[in-house]
């Protein structure tokens, strides 16, 4: 039996699954000040008998998302080594930062050296501002981390109490700004995150739960709880990923569908193509923070069941924010849910209370509650339709850099819309009708997010770069190796792939992952200097593909 728990902003959902059947599910309100309480609450509801054999638990938590949105940061500073290039004043960081001399180019060559005195002076400036955590991030550090490492040595000597993290340890992907942000976010949140993980482990121990426990990442992959401190920021936005994977498990194999997850405050959209949730081409952007975190392609609209209805310029419109619970459920203001209640699209709560909340709107416009409700709902449906079309267009317009890719473009047009979450069914039906899509919704859609978490497995998509001229290997997760004896001046594609797989397998082992990696794509660039070939750059994209462990086949 396996358990999936998704701690969302409003509710915490849980499911107990055995042999592709959801045996139990539950939903409790989330206490944002005490996430652990909600998790324990769900666990207690799911596990009725202590004797029940739980083989695996996966938790998706909104903790990291909350910390970033609320900017609950520990005092963190950044030392940046940009070298020549873009003026950093063109970017914004939510941390104190200083620039030091030094530079590395795209091949990992050092083009400017460090200056120890300057480093001490600049770090002292940050320490004077009260920082306790220091990120050191160099441009192109994944191609050669030595300046970051040397800087850290100098900092350790002069400021031994500072907690230091290096950019290339956080991500090996190219994007200096996002790497700096990721490093800062890690440092600014890791203590809070560690506390949460420790107390979660404790709570499980107290309940004699000894099975493997995993935490869900934004790309729908999972990490064993003991290794999660290397991946804290990757857990941001794991909730929408859980929903998308849950939706996948409720659809027939190889289906393409739009996924619409309607919560109280927002609606999240994602895309499943031929049975695979679509990954975003760039890292997660959360409010105004650009991160290096790989995630599904998720779009959000500030429209949900608790979104208020108001009148502006004599027009019915939405407030685009949560106005507390719907009036029909005891709230004070009219919401989208009340519209559906009035139009008999849902039997949630008390219809009279919903109507009562519409009185002032009705008298202002001199229109019946039904008409106002219909207009508000039309507006929501219109905006959702636009967003879905936009997401699809974005996917189709994803830049491609190779002729074969442009010649072999996939031409998939999803014909299905699967709706998830409380007000999902009625809104999903309206949107599907408008867009001429088949609407999919069955009772388990209410807990699709928890199902997605329960079934998630480790997934990876990484890049390894081998420079045979410099005999260096770098990777998208920060692994770097110099003077490797395994590199020959000229390597065949097979040799390069073999070496890449060997390195990647070791990385998987270190993370406690048992899975068979695959090569996704591989290319080689001859480096020509003057008129002769001096080496090669092999770029190998490899990983562990998404494999949701089995489809759910509960009878409707």
């Amino acid at each position, binding site marked *: 039996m396996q358990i999936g728990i998704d701690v969302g902003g409003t509710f915490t959902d849980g499911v107990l699954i055995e042999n592709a059947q959801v045996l139990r599910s539950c939903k409790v309100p989330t206490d944002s000040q005490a996430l652990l309480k909600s998790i324990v609450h769900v666990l207690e509801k799911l596990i009725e008998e202590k004797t029940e054999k739980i083989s695996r638990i996966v938790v998706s938590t909104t903790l990291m998302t909350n910390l970033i949105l609320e900017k609950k940061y520990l005092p963190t500073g950044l030392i940046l080594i940009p070298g020549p290039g*873009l003026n950093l004043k063109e970017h914004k960081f939510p941390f104190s930062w200083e620039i030091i001399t030094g530079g590395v180019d795209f091949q990992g060559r050092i083009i400017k050296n460090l200056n120890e005195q300057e480093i001490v002076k600049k770090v002292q400036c940050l320490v004077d501002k009260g920082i306790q955590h220091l990120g050191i991030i160099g441009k192109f550090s994944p191609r050669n981390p030595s300046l970051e490492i040397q800087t850290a040595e100098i900092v350790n000597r002069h400021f031994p109490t500072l907690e230091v993290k290096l950019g290339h340890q956080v991500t090996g992907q190219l994007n200096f700004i996002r790497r700096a942000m990721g490093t800062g976010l890690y440092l600014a949140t890791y203590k809070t995150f560690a506390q949460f993980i420790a107390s979660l482990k404790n709570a499980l121990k107290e309940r004699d739960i000894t099975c493997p426990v995993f935490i869900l990442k934004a790309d729908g992959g999972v990490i064993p709880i003991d290794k999660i401190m290397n991946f804290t920021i990757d857990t941001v936005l794991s909730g929408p990923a859980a929903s998308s994977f849950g939706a996948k498990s409720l659809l027939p194999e190889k289906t393409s569908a739009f996924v619409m997850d309607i919560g109280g405050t927002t609606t999240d959209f994602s895309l499943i193509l031929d049975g695979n949730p679509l990954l975003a081409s*760039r890292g997660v952007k959360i409010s105004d923070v650009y991160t290096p975190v790989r995630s599904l392609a998720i779009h959000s609209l500030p429209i949900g069941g608790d979104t208020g209805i108001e009148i502006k310029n004599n027009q019915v419109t939405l407030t685009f924010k949560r106005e507390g619970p719907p009036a029909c459920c005891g709230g004070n203001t009219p919401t989208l849910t009340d519209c559906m209640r009035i139009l008999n699209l849902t039997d949630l709560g008390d219809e009279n209370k919903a109507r009562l909340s519409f009185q002032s709107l009705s008298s202002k416009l001199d229109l019946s509650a039904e008409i106002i409700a219909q207009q508000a709902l039309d507006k929501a449906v219109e905006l959702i339709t636009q967003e879905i079309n936009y997401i699809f267009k974005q996917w189709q317009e994803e*830049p491609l*850099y190779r*002729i074969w890719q442009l010649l072999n473009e996939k031409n998939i047009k999803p014909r299905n819309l699967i709706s998830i979450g409380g007000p999902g069914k009625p809104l999903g039906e309206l949107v599907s009708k408008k867009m001429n899509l088949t609407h999919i919704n069955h009772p388990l859609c209410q807990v699709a997010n928890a199902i997605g978490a329960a079934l998630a497995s480790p997934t990876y998509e990484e890049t390894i770069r081998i420079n045979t001229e410099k005999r260096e290997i770098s990777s998208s997760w920060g692994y770097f190796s110099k003077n490797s004896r395994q590199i020959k001046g000229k390597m065949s594609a097979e040799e390069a792939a073999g070496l890449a797989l060997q390195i990647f397998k070791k990385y998987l082992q270190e993370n406690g992952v048992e899975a068979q990696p695959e090569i996704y794509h591989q290319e080689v660039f001859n480096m020509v200097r003057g008129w002769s070939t001096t080496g090669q750059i092999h770029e190998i994209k490899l990983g562990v593909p998404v494999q949701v462990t089995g489809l759910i086949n509960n009878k409707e």
Partner: protein
Amino acid sequence: MSKYTGLVFFPAFDWAISPTHPEREERLLYTRDQLLEEGVLDFPDIIEYKAKFADKQDILRTHFCLPSFENVITDAHLIAAGSAILIGEAWHHREIKNGFALVRPPGHHAMHVTHGNRGFCNINNEAIMIEYLRKKFGYRKIAIVDTDVHHGDGTQDIFYHDPDVLFISLHQDGRTLFPGSGFINELGGPNAYGKTLNIPLLPGTGDQGINYVFDNLILPVLEEFKPEIIINSAGQDNHFTDPLANMKVTAFGYGSITKKLNPDIMVLEGGYAVETALPYVNLAITLALAGKDFSQIQEPQLKESMLKETSENMEYIKKLCEKLYLIWQNHTNIDLTKIFGKDDYYTTNRQIFYDTDYFIVEQEEAVRRCSDCGGLIIFKSRRKEGRKNPTFLCISIPIYACPRCQQEGKDRFLQECRNNNFEQVFLQNKPEDTYLTKDDYYG
């Protein structure tokens, strides 16, 4: 006015002329790395577009492809040209305030009649975009500033007779570099005299020199010409590290002239210092277009001493600019019969060297003297080697042709199809946007 800068990046990582050719897979690899690492694509005011294919029609509107379309064009060429069109179209629709087609393969050596690859170019991306924008949206006055180190002889050839297109090329003196043309006496045909300006610079010219040329010649001329669109053929081989040329311009220099010119659309041309120049120049250009600070970009190889021009060279540049500006100011007051004679058709003969594909083309070009339009153009073109190489006849009716040139072009096509003296007869009827061959005539 849109606030966005558009970028279409197509490095064609799976295309090369040959494995060690400068025009190979690796060329834009480090440019990609630099743009990604700097986070340039994360700027909310920079939009990246996906590369697109051009249609056959878009190519035929600009070129005669000999012996046939399929013999000259590959997928890579269609994508580079299509991407230039895409940026032009986004600019027209005001989605972007300016844009950069950072694409390969390049195009500015491809002439009106193209037999294959010369100077690494098969078809002319900028010209194809220009004719597309003019045909679809009715633009007329266009300025092209070619900042590649090589003379943009292909673009010059295509618009040599077009009075509405101002072509300005600055380049390393043709006596010292391929293609060996681009001298100050190449000023346009009889119907477009003065609408081609060539600025041959001495080897070793750097930032100071080209900035002077922009301030004292190019910008004032553009100011007076008042184009509807300014296009920059953005070659990057004036860079001090380029292996194929001998100039001394820096990435910062390229950024400054981009800022000065403020082009609507830029299209990448040459530039083969794949490590030492391209990542930095492309970054500088992109930032300059987007109105961001590029002053901290500095190549590792750069030395202060390289930044100053010799006084002899500055003297040469000053005189050159004065002379050309004088020509520009007086170009409408010249007695053209002294240069082009009085015949109805002005006819020239030339040999064109296809360096990449390694053959020579013999070509006769006849342009109808016309005061109402660019004039009907008729080419007779054949590859020289081998006695039996056939001759092709190409008839081009310009996009804003007068009724007389249109009629004469169509009549000539029918007549030549009937006479059957040529291997193939092509009609490029731009006003009607139809592109025919003898085969269409015989059905």
